[in-house]
């Protein structure tokens, strides 16, 4: 496991003890990363805020299902929020809510990421520079778009094997960056 020296284990312990004040700490520690990914998926500030709050409720209520031996807290909470955000863009409720919005907003929700997408973080450009545009497109559709690998293959008109190869290559590149 990557080193967990920055107090994550203590936070985990407090959350396990149902310490409500620990959620403030949780927010200060993870909100930027969670909010960035949620925004990347739902693309609207109000929606992202709703999803983050919903995610925190879910993390609190189902915290007993978090198993630290299986992975970092960060990974777990990121997946909770990412899945909620993906559910949100796929749900009917979302579509009803956006009915009076401009057309380009609602149509763009499930589009694959543009390689030029540039949030206010210095690390992203450096990371994506290591990925080919093809690799980034596939990994973004899988990770942020909630697509299955077969759906990506359909969408991009590629053989499933090619999609799998690109996804694996992309993740290899990303994990090499932190080794």
């Amino acid at each position: 496991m990557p080193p967990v020296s920055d107090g994550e284990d203590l936070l985990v312990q407090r959350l396990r003890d149902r310490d409500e004040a620990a959620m403030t700490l949780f927010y200060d520690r993870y909100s930027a990363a969670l909010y960035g990914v949620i925004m990347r998926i739902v693309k609207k500030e109000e929606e992202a805020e709703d999803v983050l709050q919903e995610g925190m409720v879910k993390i609190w209520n189902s915290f007993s299902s978090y198993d630290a031996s299986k992975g970092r807290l960060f990974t777990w909470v990121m997946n909770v929020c990412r899945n909620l955000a993906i559910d949100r863009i796929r749900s009917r409720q979302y579509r009803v809510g956006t009915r009076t919005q401009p057309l380009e907003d609602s149509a763009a929700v499930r589009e694959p990421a543009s390689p030029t997408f540039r949030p206010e973080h210095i690390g992203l450009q450096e990371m994506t520079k290591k990925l080919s545009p093809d690799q980034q497109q596939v990994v973004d559709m899988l990770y942020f778009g909630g697509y299955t690998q077969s759906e990506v293959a359909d969408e991009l008109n590629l053989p499933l094997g090619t999609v799998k190869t690109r996804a694996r290559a992309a993740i290899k590149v990303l994990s090499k960056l932190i080794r």
Partner: protein
Amino acid sequence: MDIQQYIESGILEEYALGVLPEADRAEVERIAATYPEIRHELNSIVGGLDTYAEAHSLTPPSGMRERVLAGWQQAIRAEQPAATAPVAPVAEAPYTAPQAAAPVAEPVVRPIGSAPQTPSYEEAPRRGFGWLMAASVALLLSLAGNYILYNRWQNTETALFAAQNDQARFAAAQQASQKQLSSQGRELAVLRDVQFQSVTLAGTPAAPSAKARVLYNPATKAVYVDVHSLPAPPAGKQYQLWALDNGKPVDAGVLAATTAAGDSLQQMKDITSAQAFAMTVEDAGGSASPTLSTMTVLGKML
């Protein structure tokens, strides 16, 4: 089990991306727990994606911290009101972060009694109201836009109908002109044709002012009649033209009302030979032999 082969299979990447079904996820976790090498590989794969996710970090807008924490607290209390209602004030619980960088600067967890009065609680409905306002404004704008577009559409529709009517009218007028032009062209051709002999029919004592003309082409046997003036025939009666060949009357056809009124030339039946022409008033449809008492005009060929 071949660890290297398992790592190469790509299932760990699929696990990290969250695209595996639940049963396969559990299997990956079981295997990773058994083989440290696989656990290590899985951690670095997950770590790579985590770093990628973290690279998308965005600082949330100001004010969101209080709203989200208050909303979270409201939600967890609403879900288990009985269990957490008698909660003790935990806000001031002494907690020091392991690192100095993470102090609990502003705990928002407060005794339940003071909760409804905190301003942060009122943010949520206000934000909902803002949404409603935005939606209402969007709807109003949309309605206004629709009204304008509907009016424009209506105007366009009206203009289109008018244009189509005009077009139909012009087409009909043009067709009529064309027909008139071709009939006048034919009349002119007859009048200019030197083969046609003109026979002037003068009024008889029964109708002294009557006057007509017959154009006869002995070569083609064609006969045209051209009326200058004739008394209107009685109801149920028609003028009939007769060719007189060696004193014997030959039917040359009846005159249409427009011809009798002098509107245009009318081609009559072909006549093989004639020395004179005459018109009588007969029953509508014509007679086999002329009623001599009603002879109106008569003229001899020169």
